[in-house]
């Protein structure tokens, strides 16, 4: 199919389950959608080597289920893991709550068989992770479907921890919860996950079928998960509880059974869905700030929401500083929609000013295209375009995503030529 599209010169967009949150898998009217969900075989599992080879349409959670009998799992766990595909995870370099300890998708992909947009094949990386050349796997992961299609993906599997301890702490304010996050990280403890939800999010979850028993009068809750050897987890659990209390936690609840743990996590993982109760439309934002900036940035975000008279709900990976401020609104109201977009841009500006990034795990896609110049200068954007043309000279794979098009011409001119014509950004 890709060879036919190449011969016809037609643009196309590779798509998995379509759960992405930056519009990366959306196609313009003239593009062909190449849907990969039928390529859903787990090709092989090698428990002793802790590797699995999968096709791109395998659903993330299905892989962990398949390797459970071997005491293994696939660590990156986006909230959409019950639906999203591993091919999409590779394209977006997807994250998830447990990436705090275990790393994101790029840390778990060792080898890719890639179909390039001209219809040729490239074999990148190797099963052990030592490459046959420069790290093209690292370059391909997170390229948002613009370099080609990963036909087979070799992934690292991670042993299931011997012990898991899940704690829920509730706080009067978001600031107090943020300070607890800083205290835990400063103590040198790396929880498996460290997630925060603010009151608007808690109320939405507790009003939904995903109710997890979060206290609805809390300003914020923290979900802290510790895993590893029993002794280490026991010691860290005591230390974390002391830090939570010292930071002003009103109460701490420990999951006592696997079902209890699953319930606590269900509320967190289905929070985006639960927000559907607040309003018909939702802008899910994704930005990263240095962890130490969390308390101030969160207050600024809430102030932005107030100034635009918007309903904001925050649910995010606090341990990574990876924020998801969500704006609930009704897109039928044009004035409200305008204010939502203005607030979204202001939130991004606050995060960038704090030294952060415009996306931690959702990707740029089409949603964040306009924000890219906030963090990259013209030469850096042009270099990305040039790298894209190495993989896809005719620029037909997922056209118009990630890099604003007008930045894609400068590279060809060369810096000296640009300087002579007075147009150099250097």
């Amino acid at each position, binding site marked *: 199919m890709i060879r036919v599209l190449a011969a016809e010169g037609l643009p196309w967009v590779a798509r998995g389950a379509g759960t992405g949150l930056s519009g990366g898998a959306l196609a313009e009217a003239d593009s062909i959608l190449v849907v990969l969900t039928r390529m859903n075989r787990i090709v092989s599992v090698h428990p002793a080597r802790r590797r699995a080879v999968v096709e791109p349409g395998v659903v993330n959670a299905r892989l962990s289920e398949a390797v459970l009998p071997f005491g293994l799992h696939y660590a990156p766990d986006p909230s959409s893991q019950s639906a999203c595909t591993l091919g999409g995870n590779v394209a*977006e*370099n997807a*994250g998830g709550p447990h990436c705090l300890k275990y790393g994101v998708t*790029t*840390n778990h992909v060792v080898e890719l068989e*890639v179909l390039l947009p001209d219809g*040729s*094949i490239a074999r*990148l990386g*190797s*099963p*052990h*992770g*030592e*490459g*046959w050349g*420069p*790290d*093209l*796997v690292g*370059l391909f*992961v997170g390229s948002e479907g613009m370099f080609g299609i990963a036909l087979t993906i070799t992934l690292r599997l991670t042993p299931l921890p011997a012990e898991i301890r899940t704690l829920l702490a509730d706080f009067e304010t978001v600031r107090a919860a943020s300070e607890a996050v*800083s205290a835990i*990280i*400063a*103590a*040198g*403890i*790396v929880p498996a996950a460290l997630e925060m939800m603010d009151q608007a999010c808690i109320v939405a979850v507790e009003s939904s079928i995903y109710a997890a028993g979060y206290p609805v009068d809390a300003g914020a809750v923290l979900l802290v998960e510790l895993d*590893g*050897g029993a*002794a*280490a987890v026991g*010691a860290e659990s005591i*230390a974390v509880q002391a830090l939570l209390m010292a930071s002003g936690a009103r109460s701490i609840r420990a999951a006592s059974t696997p079902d209890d743990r699953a319930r606590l996590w269900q509320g967190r993982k289905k929070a985006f869905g639960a927000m559907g109760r607040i309003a018909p439309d939702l802008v899910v934002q994704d930005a*990263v700030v*240095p*962890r130490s900036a969390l308390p101030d940035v969160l207050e600024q975000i809430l102030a932005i929401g107030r100034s635009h008279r918007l309903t904001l709900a925050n649910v995010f*990976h606090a341990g*990574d*500083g*990876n924020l998801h401020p969500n704006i609930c609104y009704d897109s039928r109201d044009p004035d409200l929609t305008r204010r939502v977009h203005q607030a979204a841009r202001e939130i991004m500006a606050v995060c960038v000013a704090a030294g*952060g*990034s415009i996306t931690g*795990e*959702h990707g740029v896609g089409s949603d964040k295209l306009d924000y*890219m110049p906030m963090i*990259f*200068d013209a*030469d*850096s954007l042009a*270099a990305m375009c*040039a*790298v894209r043309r*190495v993989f896809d000279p005719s620029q037909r794979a997922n056209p118009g995503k*990630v890099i604003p098009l007008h930045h894609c011409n400068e590279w060809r001119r*060369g*810096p*000296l030529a640009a300087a002579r014509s007075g147009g150099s950004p*250097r």
Partner: protein
Amino acid sequence: MSEAILMRLRHALGEAAVEQDREGRPRAIPDSAEAVAQVCGLAHEQGWRVRIEGHGTWMPTDAPADLALSTRGLSRVVDVAPADRVATVEAGVSIGVLQRELTAQGAWLALDPPGRPERSIGSIVATGTAGPLRHGFGPMRDHILGGTIVTGDGRTIKAGGHVVKNVAGYDLTKLQVGGFGAFGVVTQLHLRLRATPAASATLVARGERDVLTHAARALVDQRLAPSAMELFSPALAGEAEWVLAVAFSGTDAGVADDIAQVYLDAPASWTRLPPDRATAFWNATARAALSGEISFRLGVFADGQDEIIDLLAEHLDTGLVSAGPGGGSLRWSGDAVVEKLRILRHLAAEREIPLTLERAPWPVRHAFGHYGAYREGVGALVSKLRSTFDPDPTFAVALEGAKHG
């Protein structure tokens, strides 16, 4: 030619930033990314060939070139944010200096590459070399959050960011790790830090190789999570027998429990090293690679390591071997002629094992190349990427070996 280049460089950078190497060739020592870009832009315009140098303690500074570009002047630890677990450093900062500075602030870069503590961060990135800590914390690529790169024609690019999670744009930093400078000069890096562990311990066991590999497998099977686990040949460890070394870090209770598990699950004659001896042991094994003039790494699973060590013994020697029985790589150091290396790369490739030349004198690098035996479709991509980041090219890097008949 050298005189003309010297004059141009002095004019561009100032007298203090230019010197001559032992052969009288110009060496530029810029102290900023802008100055590096100036040198590269000038070299590209004039058609000068440039050799990138760090501190010269790992890769010999012997590539034939019209001038050397040293990263020695890029020697600032720009920022350490212990609470954010991020540091920004210039490429010429040595790993030893950086670790000392981090320790003072309660932070740690979980990286212990082979070589001396004087090795520059830029050298570690360019060669993609990692040590025993890759078992617990991943190789070099997992520690880099972003950075600044200057291309062969003098453009300055920012890649990645300085937060611990970031997917904005393509990850151009990955190309620099193990790129041997073929895709630009890294001038500044944002690195992921960890907290200095509250407790740590090193256990070593000496004995026959197969007993130790068996013990290592038992540790892996028991889901123990050491921060480092490495098998050293007798010559590398400076001992009469093979040595398996395992390090744990974390809380006091966790480390104590891990050690108890090792004694229980992995039968071998374990000795716990006191802290000062543990530090000395890891430092000595890191430096031992320098006893030979060549180092290369092989990608090989634990279940294939015995076979490849035998292959090394047959075609080179078992001299200085350092293998990660829990991970997927093995390093050999020693002396060898190119023809032997070619045979070994060929035999390894037959077993689906890549061989990366990490360090060697220029004649060996030039003839053998850092990489060889690219897999389907990779050669063309690498070649085009190289033209993108270093058109013409400016940098003297033997990414692939010279063609041979």
